[in-house]
């Protein structure tokens, strides 16, 4: 993998026919789709690593 690639725009593709796995930079279309996915993603609270309910 090209270490200069922005990690959020990296995709890994596995071809089950050949058994080959390729990690590469997203194409422009894939990148635009990923931006849309992240924009519409759920907003989840980060984990504070402590139980919210007493134990």
């Amino acid at each position, binding site marked *: *993998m090209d270490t200069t690639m922005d*990690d*959020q*725009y*990296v*995709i*890994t*593709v*596995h*071809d*089950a*026919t050949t*058994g080959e*796995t390729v*990690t590469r930079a*997203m194409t422009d279309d*894939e990148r635009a*789709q*990923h931006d*849309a*996915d992240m924009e*519409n*993603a*759920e907003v*989840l*609270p*980060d*984990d*504070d*690593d*402590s*139980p*919210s*309910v007493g134990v």
Partner: protein
Amino acid sequence: MATNFPGSLDSFTNPTSGSTLDSPSHASQHANINDAVEALEAKVGVDGSAVTTSLDYKVAQQGLTLLARSAATSGTVLSFDNVFSSTFNVYRIAIVVNVTSAFGLQMRMRSGGSDSTGANYRYVRTAYTYGGTLEQSYSAGDTKWNIPCIASTNNAGGVLDVYNPYSANKTTYSGSGSDGRVGSGTGGLVGGGILNTNASHDGFSLISSTINSLIVSVYGYNNG
């Protein structure tokens, strides 16, 4: 010596450069090897064997067949191509994931190396928090499924069953998974959905926040 296989392994006497044809018996050497090869053939079985003790029969009867396994240690998407076919009707996808920030995993069906990105994904995902609060995620027209697995910096995972993805009909899935979060987490998730378009798919994509580790195995259920 008749062969002991498959009850136990044979131990043959090898002739040396100084051995005569009668010690060990040359005829017996051939007979022993012939018997052993025949025993091996019987154990392996012919194509489509109906002999229940043959390996060919046992392999054909097994419940799940591993079709593909892959992993990502960077990036945000892991896609599988050419994993769904007409060979199986139902597939199981097993996921183990660890990411840099909390994220509900998303999934899209895929064909010919491209995701199906239309707003045709319908899903419901349900969970209870550790405080007993019901949390739901649902849509009747999204561009992806929110699947029942919430990734975080702790390991999480899920198992999904996907039904008839290769047929030119609507694909459905159901499954369950865990939530890697502790303080704000839920005690496991269940969910399911339908891709409301008639199309054949040969793969899928899992979409995440930045991946530390994402390991995915895909199995086909024996059609019986």
